[in-house]
């Protein structure tokens, strides 16, 4: 791994990075075009969609909206205005909250980031070891159980699973705390990052930390359930392929114990495709919060999206859509860059 021997190859990583930066930037612009087209051409009546029932009955508001987005101009000109406002962080105004969409997003994002990150940690902590073991003990009981669990796991709708665990652990057994980030009436930790776990730690407030963590367990488990199967399967398939490679046979032939072969040679190489998928799975988790947060009354972006959808709050939905697409692209970019270190062969192609 690493090491760029040979003069002619030295410019390779630079060229690779430049190509990735340009590619990602182009895709980001294209993503804004898709969101713009959906927002401005798909609705039967964009004014009604953007302003809502009440406001579109008010001629003054309608006139202001028309002027703002220059709705009588050609489409490409409208897109230019859209891009210009976007560059200044203007995603429009939410119909429901009457605030800039970006402010809403900034307010709700920390709760979602905290939840999705914990779910991602759970996914990796369960999925990777399970996938490795399933491959090493191929066709053993663990392999079969893992496979069946994955198949069943991806078949359960997230929103239904969320309801079930809540009904069982909160309603029935009463061992889980109420939905929400903290108990009703609890004092919020002093605001630094908006992440309750981090903020309560910074304040040295262990009671709040434990409460926040307890509230997070069920939604994080539900969220992780949808991605664990994917990571397990990918790890397993990649491990099986790696275990059949020549260098693994060589390592065995020179007398290395099987545990050393697996840990030292197979796992590091088998995890490369898992990294690719892991980046995308994280973005997928962010999207999955729409359903999970709704049931767990989690005041994050997901629930904000749900409420926006219910209210047909179009600017808000579009803002979140664009944001998640940009996160998706950013994750892809990070994954691509990680290949510089993980698998230099990819860069050379």
């Amino acid at each position: 791994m690493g090491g760029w021997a040979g003069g002619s190859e030295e410019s390779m990583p630079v060229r690779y990075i430049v190509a990735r930066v340009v590619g990602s930037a182009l895709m980001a612009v294209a993503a804004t075009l898709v969101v713009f087209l959906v927002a401005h051409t798909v609705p039967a009546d964009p004014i009604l969609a953007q302003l809502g029932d009440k406001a579109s009955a008010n001629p003054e508001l309608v006139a202001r909206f028309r002027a703002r987005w220059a709705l009588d101009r050609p489409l490409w000109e409208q897109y230019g205005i859209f891009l210009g406002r976007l560059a200044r962080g203007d995603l429009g105004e939410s119909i429901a909250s009457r605030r800039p969409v970006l402010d809403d997003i900034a307010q709700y994002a920390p709760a979602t980031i905290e939840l999705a990150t914990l779910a991602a940690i759970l996914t990796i902590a369960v999925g990777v070891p399970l996938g490795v073991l399933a491959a090493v003990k191929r066709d053993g009981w663990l392999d079969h159980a893992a496979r069946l669990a994955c198949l069943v796991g991806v078949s359960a709708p997230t929103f239904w699973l969320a309801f079930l665990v809540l009904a069982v652990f909160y309603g029935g057994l009463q061992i889980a705390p109420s939905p929400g980030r903290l108990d009703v009436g609890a004092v919020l930790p002093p605001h630094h990052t908006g992440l309750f776990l981090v903020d309560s730690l910074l304040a040295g407030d262990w009671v709040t930390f434990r409460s926040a963590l307890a509230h997070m367990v069920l939604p994080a488990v539900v969220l992780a359930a949808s991605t664990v199967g994917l990571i397990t399967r990918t790890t397993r398939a990649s491990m099986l392929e790696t275990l059949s490679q020549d260098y693994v046979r060589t390592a065995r032939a020179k007398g290395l114990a099987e545990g050393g072969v697996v840990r030292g040679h197979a796992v590091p190489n088998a995890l490369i495709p898992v990294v690719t998928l892991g980046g995308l799975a994280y973005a997928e988790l962010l999207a999955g919060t729409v359903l999970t947060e709704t049931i767990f009354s989690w005041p994050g972006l997901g629930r904000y999206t749900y409420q926006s959808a219910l209210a047909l709050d179009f600017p808000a939905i579009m803002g979140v859509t664009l944001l998640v697409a940009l996160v998706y692209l950013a994750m892809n970019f990070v994954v691509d860059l990680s290949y510089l270190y993980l698998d230099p062969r990819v860069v050379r192609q």
Partner: protein
Amino acid sequence: MSAAARGRRRLTLGAGGALIILGWLAILAVGPGLAPYSYRQVDLVARLRPPSAEHYFGTDALGRDVFSRVLVGSRVSLPSGFAVVLVAAVFGTLYGGVAAYGGAKTEEAMMRVTDLFLSFPPLILAMAIAAALGIGVTNTIVAMAVVWWPKYARLSRSLVIVQRSLEYVEAAHALGHGAARTLLRHIVPNAIGPVVVLLALDVGNSMITFAGLSFLGLGVVPPTPEWGAMVSEGQVLIEQWWVSTFPGLAIFSVVVGFNFLGDALRDWLDPRARP
């Protein structure tokens, strides 16, 4: 475990999946005939009754029979999931096939468009489009199909590219067969396996997403008995667990059926993916 034993176990799993699907298709066919009550019959006296001999799955907040609504709901949820995949698969496969045959520049441009669609999480983009189009089953299917086709385009392009360089395709060309004929008569039958696998696994996936959109209030107009919408109606009724549990179980069972079947089909039709 021997290959034969593994094959038998796969067969059992696949057959089980197929049975579940056939069972649901039978319910779909005779649905309202089996339902003991009308799916829209409101009975405020019998609100939120737990499951009993009278109401197998209990009653919801309006006193409607959950069992009857789950049965009739199959007529909304199942066809919607099929419709999305059908539209997406036909369009995506043609798109990918054309891209693969279109020359380097066309191919590059066409596949960039699919990349773009794949850079949006399906649920979120479908939500945005569904919200823009307005609520209703047809609009939701359209919104989902718009985000659903790129994976078929990618798959069919890669399959055509692999097939194109094979000897029998060159032979067909040498015999003077045109591109369209070669594509339909030679390439499609040989490359169809992975597409069938994707189809089977994807129908369940699309049913979950459709139910999810319905759950979010973007699928059906009440009182249409759609499974996702029914789970949503009962989501705050933790004590009256049956209102949400049974419609959710219906979605779960259908999707398990398709995933079992798809998994078995993958082993059978797509030998390279064999574990």
